[in-house]
């Protein structure tokens, strides 16, 4: 034991030393960082959050599921750019023009000349052929891809592929054959120094961020923003704080109070609702569904009993958009909506009409206010994923609104695993979930993937990859119309087919439409100009869009 006097002195000395060290490092660092508001990030560097979380692992392989955001659009490009937010024609990128043959089994594409990969080698038609026909990316329906001449490529298919125009021209990444033919396993390849045609190249990566540098030889002209740094952030609240304090310049995320962030004028804001939120119902008795929701009258009654205005205001903070029961995106897809069906889902509750629908179908109101038929009450379970607070709140509101109309709905939350499992196997009554919005101004993909009887399985069997028809809905009229629409590029014929489909689905309601989910984007309009705004929506704005992010990055400039 140290003598008490010596110990006292030692303790004091240690305390002083550690205190001074902490003070020194604290003061020293803050001195370096300077003004927390704007410096501590180099001028002219665009700081982006696209949703990555730490630790960031360098993976710029466009075929890998864990690819980093900047690779898609920033480094690799597609032949054309399809603007998700508008109905305009696709913008030529690496392709200049394209043409289908009469029956859609051949697609001829003219490619842009004078493009080079970022390692200096020229971009050729052989690269395009390789990008379509290599093992990892080759679609099932592709019969062959061949070079017709140095600027033309012809793709031949096994059947008409009009409806896969976007998948081929807007979502297939152009990769260099001279790099990829020597890669032993394209899926596990980390591709840390990616060779692409895009406006940016990879400058550095760390576990907390990665930085992209402008590609001076980009075919569209060297981008004006020299460096773009993508951060890894784990919590949405942190991202909000960083946006507020000026550390992040571009982010697409849900913020309940956007006015709080835009108050000081640095941040611009745009909301481009895209993806429908619906109630999946297990609708088909023949496929094995059970429950009161298998009766179309119950679904129709529920549809009019819901108060979408209140749900938007209370659960989605007023940021969601109105939905059309035709699943065509209002505004963008208006031309495809048949005049014979309801264009917009009712925004107010109508309990009386719900009652009428049920009574016409033979239901009678019981003593407790809930309708019943043959002794069975109309009682349904509604699940939503725990933690998705907007959905959870909406589910509670629906339960209350349904009860007022005489339908018993019990809302509960489940884990994501249970949610996924139940919708894949069809063992559910009602689930609140999303529908994947289409990337083109055409609702076909939703009709085929979500309503077609060929894209589903009986209850108890998991859906296969690419099948999204959780409701098990199977209607021969719809299936025939879907097939007819797939085989033609004639607008009038497609409108006819869609009109048939819309008549069926707005009556049968296998998915009860609720709202269109908000897609919010915040961007630094003070330090950078050229962002997509409501007046000039040249690209889908969020930082996590793939091809669209590349288009935005090559368009914005530092402010003068």
């Amino acid at each position: 034991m140290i003598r008490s006097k010596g110990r006292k002195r030692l303790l004091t000395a240690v305390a002083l030393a550690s205190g001074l060290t902490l003070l020194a490092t604290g003061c020293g660092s803050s001195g370096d960082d300077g003004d927390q508001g704007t410096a501590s990030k180099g001028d002219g560097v665009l700081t982006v959050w696209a949703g990555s979380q730490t630790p960031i692992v360098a993976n710029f392989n466009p075929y890998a599921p864990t690819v980093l955001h900047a690779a898609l659009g920033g480094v690799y490009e597609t032949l054309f750019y399809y603007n998700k937010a508008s109905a305009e024609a696709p913008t030529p990128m690496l392709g200049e023009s394209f043409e289908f043959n009469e029956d859609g089994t051949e697609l001829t594409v003219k490619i842009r000349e004078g493009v080079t990969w970022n390692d200096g080698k020229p971009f050729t038609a052989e690269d395009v052929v390789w990008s379509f026909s290599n093992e990892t990316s080759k679609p099932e329906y592709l019969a062959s891809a061949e070079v017709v001449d140095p600027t033309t490529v012809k793709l031949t298919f096994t059947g008409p592929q009009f409806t896969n125009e976007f998948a081929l021209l807007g979502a297939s990444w152009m990769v260099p054959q001279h790099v990829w033919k020597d890669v032993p396993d394209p899926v596990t390849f980390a591709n840390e120094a990616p060779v692409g045609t895009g406006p940016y190249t990879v400058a550095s990566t760390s576990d907390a961020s990665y930085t992209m540098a402008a590609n001076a030889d980009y075919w569209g002209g060297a981008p004006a923003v020299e460096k773009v740094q993508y951060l890894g952030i784990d919590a949405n609240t942190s991202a909000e704080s960083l946006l507020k304090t000026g550390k992040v310049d571009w982010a697409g995320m849900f913020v309940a109070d956007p006015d709080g962030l835009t108050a000081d004028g640095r941040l611009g804001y745009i909301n481009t609702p895209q993806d429908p939120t619906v109630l999946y119902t297990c609708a088909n008795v023949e496929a094995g569904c059970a429950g009161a929701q298998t009766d179309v009258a119950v679904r129709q009654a529920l549809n009019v009993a819901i108060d979408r205005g209140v749900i938007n205001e209370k659960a989605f903070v007023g940021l969601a958009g109105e939905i059309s029961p035709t699943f065509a995106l209002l505004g963008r897809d208006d031309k495809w909506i048949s005049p014979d069906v309801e264009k917009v889902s009712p925004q107010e509750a109508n309990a009386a009409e719900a009652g009428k629908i049920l009574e016409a179908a033979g239901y009678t109101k019981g003593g407790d206010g809930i309708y019943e038929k043959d002794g069975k009450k109309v009682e349904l379970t509604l699940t939503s994923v725990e933690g998705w607070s907007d959905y959870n709140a909406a589910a509670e509101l629906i339960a209350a609104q349904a009860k007022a109309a005489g339908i018993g709905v019990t809302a509960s939350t489940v884990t994501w695993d249970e949610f996924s499992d139940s919708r894949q196997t069809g063992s559910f009554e009602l689930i609140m979930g999303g529908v994947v919005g289409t990337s083109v101004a055409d609702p076909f993909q939703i009709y085929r993937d979500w309503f077609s009887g060929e894209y589903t399985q009986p209850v108890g069997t998991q859906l296969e990859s690419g099948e999204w028809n959780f409701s098990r809905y199977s209607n021969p009229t719809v299936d025939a119309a879907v097939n007819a629409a797939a085989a033609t590029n004639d607008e009038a014929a497609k409108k006819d087919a869609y009109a048939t489909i819309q008549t069926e689905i707005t009556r049968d309601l296998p998915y009860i439409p609720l709202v269109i989910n908000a897609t919010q984007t915040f961007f630094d309009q003070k330090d950078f100009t050229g962002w997509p705004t409501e007046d000039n929506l040249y690209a889908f704005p969020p930082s996590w869009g793939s091809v669209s992010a590349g288009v935005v990055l090559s368009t914005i400039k530092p402010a003068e």
Partner: protein
Amino acid sequence: MKYYARRLTFYVITLWAAISLNFFIPRLMPGNAEDIFRAKMARKGELTPAMEKSIQLLFGSDDQSSLWDQYLRYWNNLLHGDLGTSITKFPAPVSELIGQALPWTIVLVGLATVLSFVIGISLGAWVGWRRGTWVDGVIPASTLLQSVPYFWLALILIAVFSVNLAWFPIIGGYDTFMFPDGPVPTWEFFSSAVYHGFLPALTIVLSSVGGWLLGMRNMMVSTLSEDYITTAEAKGLRPFRILTTYATRNAALPSLAGFSVSLGFVVAGSIVMEQVFTYPGVGKLMINAVQDKDFALMQGVFLVITVTVLAANFLMDLLYGFIDPRARHNG
């Protein structure tokens, strides 16, 4: 000698059982890893057909060999230091991910735990010594801090000190703008790391010091009623000497045992702290792995935690035998 030999055997057997359990438990969990992965990707952005294919390829190579073969292969890989490849952080090897995260966790959380223990014990000793005076008011204050949900405390501190006053950074283990290439062994990096670690460490200390304080104070009060304390006072020893050399040394023994356990769990990281501060560490590896059914990463993290807790327990057992003669003779 026999005491130590017996403890050693016990720990070796526990280690074997823990590692085997580590192998079996993830395989008993429900949920299809591939679906979760696919949906996670679809939520992040658009899922191209090429990605779908690569997801299938990634998971499609599902092991058809028997459980026993997998188990043996697991042990073989373990002894070669190969913990597998992470699915969610593809294609980083698990050992690399853990190796990157572990130093941050050990330094920050370890330091914070030690600090919180030292502060808690000293304050608890003082509060127990001065029982019956105004000092007793410290206890409800510290237990209040302890019972406040950790993330709430962290968010309040961030809102006040990082966002409004801008005294501390909002996220990160180090300044990503100054060091875009990652950690470098320079003095600037070290000072940046200390600066970024201050607020997370503060929140850990604030939220856990109450527990140590309360435990120590109670032990102190009961120790002070012992006869040898009365004897020491009667013999005229200075109060400070009695407090430190006689009372605290004996009262701290149970807390030390608890401390060893919490030291072992330091490597589990502090999940909420890492989430709120986007701080690099082992906790977020674990939570992501569990949520996304990343078996290799899950097993790797659990292994590290298990081995460290066992090692810490073992060391503490030895230490206990050394510092407390009663355990040595009776154990």
